[in-house]
């Protein structure tokens, strides 16, 4: 638009599309690294795979500033309350991506110590399979989540705008 023509122009869209577009273009993740997946998540953000292409390289340490929680790794019974607290501290709108087999289902550790799927604690919008998922898998999951947001309505996790 700007820069192409010297004349002032205009663009037609719906509010919904505009808001969703804005939300997906700078979706800052909360750094919630737990186990092996966290290493791959950091690898996704590093130079080789460069998550900055999607405006997502800013891993926020504070949940207040984050839009997306990537649960990267196995969630133990001891960690589950912390996870829920971090999720509750995030501002709306917020999304959760469950990265890897352990976060999604408990993975190969079906035992006393692990929460069998993080969706028992927080609502999950996207699951990424793999143990651990490679950077490409994670990026695919993130882009699928972007698409989900673009196609969806403007609303927060309770269903209200």
């Amino acid at each position, binding site marked *: 638009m700007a820069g192409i023509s010297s004349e002032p122009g205009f663009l037609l869209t719906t509010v919904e599309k505009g808001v969703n577009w804005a939300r997906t273009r700078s979706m800052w993740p909360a750094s919630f690294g737990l186990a092996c997946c966290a290493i791959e998540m950091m690898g996704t953000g590093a130079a080789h795979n460069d998550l900055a292409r999607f405006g997502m390289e800013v891993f926020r340490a504070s949940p207040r500033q984050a839009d997306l929680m990537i649960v990267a790794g196995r969630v133990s019974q001891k960690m589950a309350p912390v996870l829920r607290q971090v999720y509750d501290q995030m501002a709306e709108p917020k999304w959760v991506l469950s990265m890897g087999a352990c976060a999604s289902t408990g993975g190969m550790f079906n035992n*006393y*110590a692990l929460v069998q799927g993080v969706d028992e604690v927080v609502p999950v919008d996207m699951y990424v399979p793999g143990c651990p998922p490679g950077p490409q898998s994670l990026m695919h999951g993130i882009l699928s989540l972007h698409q989900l947001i673009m196609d969806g309505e403007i609303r927060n996790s309770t269903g209200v705008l």
Partner: protein
Amino acid sequence: MADEPVNKTDDVPEMDEMVEEHATSEPETPVTDDPVVAAALGEIPGVLVTEHDQASSDATYHQAIVPSESWVDAVVAAKDAGFTFFIDLYAADHFREAPRFEVGINLLNRRERRRLILRTRVPYDAPTLPTVSHIFAGANFYEREAFDLLGVEFTGHPDLTRILLPDEWEGHPLRKDHAVGAIPVEFKAGSVDL
């Protein structure tokens, strides 16, 4: 295949069914011919030392079965004899054997390149052992781990609390009569909204 009671909580036998006695000492030569280990444990009564080969290696190491009464004495003797490098402390559950719990400590002698693993047993009804955390500071966390996961109590330990599991946890999961805690996996096909 199904001879281990790991997944079953129902058919745990009563403790009085345990018949198999674990021999703490056998009538053999009391101490090994290795001079370093002999110097460490020669004074401790009832010690049984065995030498083990490592895989893909020329190095060997020693295991010593120690009566639980002389646990601290043996650790102190080993430390005085040069086994000053604390490596590891573990506990294990020998279910259906008496005494039931095993505790071991793994020490290194840097000068002589020897590894010595002292092992002892404590019974189910009194799973207590004096702490060695005042001899090796590093034993502190390891003893807490053994207490947390197997319920072996170390008397005199400065802070014997749960370390890996939450404080309000009940039970000791690495005991053999504790279930794995697996939940049954159900496959629910067709419930995904597309």
